[in-house]
């Protein structure tokens, strides 16, 4: 992918974003998701901006994969901010099931309601209508809306299904159904259909291959580490007031670290952490001493830190 993204034929402004059907522009966001995302401090490249635009135009979920720390989750947060929509997050884990993702009945409250009805009836001496009592038990107020149902009920909303690779296969099949229909049917209440389908962002860390049937219904976005210039821009946008030289040095050093064959190459999140740490200790530029003191912000394995600590001077030489 590097060959094409850096070959220089990339035009400066995608003309299609000036068409008037973009949902972003209806909400008064300037020129395309790239520009809109920029206003939130999230710097998107052409591919990412195109992906976000297509996800909204085609009403398809966006399936993000990539190295940890390349901004998969941050993308959903930025999209929610730019669309002025509520971000609803579903964190997947081992053994997650529909009652944790979709809805559940509040059993204790239902029981309490039943007791209250009984007590009231015995006090006044009237007889209860069994059907009416049962119907009152399955009232929407006893329904606990979990993230997916909440996303369908809220509009506009951005539904972030985080780390979907941690969930089981059965859960994937269930997601597939919800994501294609944009509707959920609850036997006691009926069908809940989204007025405006939520923008769905799925992220995966590739600990497990997600089923192809799910991927096929999504736009597939592979997120890589940004290039040097982009990363410097990200630093300036996330940490306003960072000295020009420090930002360039940090981005350059992280770039070298990523090529240094580490156990855990630093992601963008670590770059920002490191730059913030350096800013906090009052560094105006990066030298061996300050780098050694703040190395824990960027390298998270002892083996990596030990290896890099002895060659800090070559790392910082540019």
């Amino acid at each position, binding site marked *: *992918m590097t*060959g*094409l993204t850096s*070959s220089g*034929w*990339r*035009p400066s402004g*995608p*003309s*299609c974003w000036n068409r008037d059907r973009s949902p972003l522009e209806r909400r008064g966001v300037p020129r395309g998701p790239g520009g809109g995302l920029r206003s939130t401090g999230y710097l998107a490249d*052409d*591919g990412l901006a*195109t*992906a976000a*635009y*297509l996800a909204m*135009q*085609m009403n*398809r979920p966006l399936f993000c*994969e990539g190295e*940890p720390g390349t901004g998969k989750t941050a993308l959903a947060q930025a999209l929610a901010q730019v669309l002025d929509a509520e971000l609803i997050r579903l964190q997947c884990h*081992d*053994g997650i099931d529909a009652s944790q993702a979709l809805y559940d009945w509040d*059993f204790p409250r239902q029981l309490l309601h039943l007791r209250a009805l009984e007590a009231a009836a015995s006090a006044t001496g009237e007889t209860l209508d069994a059907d009416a009592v049962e119907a009152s038990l399955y009232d929407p107020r006893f329904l606990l809306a979990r993230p997916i149902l909440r996303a369908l009920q809220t509009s506009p909303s951005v539904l972030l299904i985080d780390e979907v*690779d*941690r969930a*089981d*296969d059965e859960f994937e099949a269930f997601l597939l159904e919800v994501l294609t229909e944009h509707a959920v049917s609850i036997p006691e209440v009926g069908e809940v259909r989204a007025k405006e389908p939520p923008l769905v962002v799925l992220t995966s*860390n*590739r*600990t*497990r*291959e997600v089923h*192809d049937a799910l*991927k*096929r219904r999504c*736009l*597939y*976005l*592979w997120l890589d580490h940004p290039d040097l210039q982009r990363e410097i821009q990200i630093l300036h946008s996330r940490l306003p007031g960072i000295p020009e030289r420090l930002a360039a040095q940090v981005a350059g050093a992280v770039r070298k670290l990523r090529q240094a064959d580490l*156990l*855990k190459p630093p992601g963008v999140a670590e770059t920002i952490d490191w730059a913030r740490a350096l800013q906090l200790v009052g560094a105006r530029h990066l030298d061996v001493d300050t780098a050694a003191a703040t190395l824990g912000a960027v390298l998270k394995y002892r083996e990596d830190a030990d290896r890099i600590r002895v060659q800090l001077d070559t790392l910082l030489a540019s």
Partner: protein
Amino acid sequence: MGPTLTPPQATDPLPGLVGFTVVLRNAGLAITTDRVAAFLSALDALDVTDRMQTYWAGRLTLCSDPDDLPRYDQAFAGWFEPGEGGRTQIRDERPPPPPRLASLTPEDAGSDEEGADSPQIHARASGTEILRHRDLGELTPAEREHLRRLMALLRPELPKRVSRRLRPARHGSTDPGRTLRAALRNHGELRELRRRDRSQRPRKVVLLLDVSGSMEPYADSLLRFAHIVARRSPASVEVFTLGTRLTRVTRELRMRDPERALAGAAKAIPDWSGGTRLGEVLRAFVDRWGQRGAARRSVIVVFSDGWERGETDVLRDQMSRLSRLAHRVVWVNPHVARTATNPCRVE
């Protein structure tokens, strides 16, 4: 497949775009009709004459794996030549499908220095990367039948782990919900305590098969075995082959029919009977899959003779990383009767 499509007109980009998806399918991407439809509707929302937007429309809709991306880039560069001012020109020729090379028989592999029929020849690590597809259809029918029958008898019992989820059980902690519901059925009379306990789930299993030249006599049967294990519990088993590079063959081995699964796997493995870079390939596995989670809490079985051409330091470091991540690491060495068990360096 080539002549069935009409040559694209300058005014109608559709045949060219569909032809591009055919090229991608030949390159090994999982292109389905709904993906092609998604590609076309993505282009409808974008600008088809803009090369960058065509590139991203295809990449977002037709790829589904980071391994697809280099192949996609190559096919894209070959199909859409950069035109004047970023306009797309669709070329009127289709690259031929990937050539199917002849299979590598043991006689061919060993024809350099020593005698071709000496068994030691297969135990030599060769540094040259022989990229060719092994045709598993070349086994004699009698052999294939024999293997198939023997392998079909295997019913591997896969390891289990304790899950976080609770299930009704005879022993364990009390289950308030079920106890109460049982009591309600008896008009509120509590007659027995229902209990629940942690359930069991299949533990992840990762099979790492060495398909380098020195393991060549075993590779066929190992793949067959991997197929049986993978079919037994498709969701919890991952299979990789190690040679000069790391290849994931899980998807191919999930197919039910063993012959089709093995043919698919053989096609996917580019470095069949090539050299060994065990340490580096193991590092690729731990970096790209193991540390992310595939190896965590799983049982890892390495089928390899441990013959390493390079330094053994890398191999040792990677094995210790793997053993820190995994629940258990099992090393199966078919040469154990003849050679040293420990990984040794081959000059």
